[in-house]
């Protein structure tokens, strides 16, 4: 039962890494949105979203990733997404979002 979402921020020199673990769904996604938008506004850096511990995401969560990408572009910065589990990578493929993001292994 790791249904809650945990968000950990690690500041690197030229970018910020955000580690997600748990589930992003309609209940936890508001917290994700505030956190990611807040980090971008604070750091104005590139962001690496590490999804190693992310077990579940829905369209609400994917929509937030898209929003974060748009915001990053306004600052001239990029978003990379890493370590997606197979079930989540599948959702990026289905929705075509894999073409929008830089997705690392």
């Amino acid at each position, binding site marked *: 039962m790791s*249904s809650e979402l945990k968000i950990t921020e690690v500041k690197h020199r030229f970018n910020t890494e955000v580690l997600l673990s748990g*589930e992003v*769904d*309609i*209940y936890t996604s508001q917290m994700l949105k505030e956190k990611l938008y807040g980090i971008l506004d604070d750091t104005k850096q590139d962001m690496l979203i590490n999804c190693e511990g992310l077990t*579940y995401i*829905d*369209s*609400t969560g*994917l*929509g937030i990733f898209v929003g974060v990408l748009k915001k990053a572009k306004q600052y001239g910065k990029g978003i990379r997404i890493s370590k997606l589990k197979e*079930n989540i990578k599948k*959702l990026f493929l*289905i*929705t075509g979002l894999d073409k929008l993001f830089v997705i690392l292994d």
Partner: protein
Amino acid sequence: MAKKVEKIELALPFKAEYVSVARLTASGIAARMGFDIESVEDIKVALSEVCNKLVSAGSKSSDRYVIDFIIHSSKIEILINFEDRRLAGLFGTNGDELGISIIEALMDTFKVSTDDSNTLSMSKEIKGKI
């Protein structure tokens, strides 16, 4: 497993915090029916997307929405009857919408009847291909 068609019903408040309950119930049913892990996951995701829309819209005429899980020998069918007719309108299928495109990709069938029946129905075969 089940030889005749059986039904499990789950009634949930129109609240974001209980969508995870729909997911767990669905995965329990699908796993018990013999779906493989990937298909169980597909069913969970598709049902969540349906619930997301319902809880986002809410309802004035009822406190809860009812999910019917119909268990066939080699197929799961998930039905939601809208007492509130407005809710059926949430599932217009314009291709640009993330939630709907996910449901359509993961389930074998997905239909919303806005006529007299006012029902959302989706199904997936065991070992059917996506």
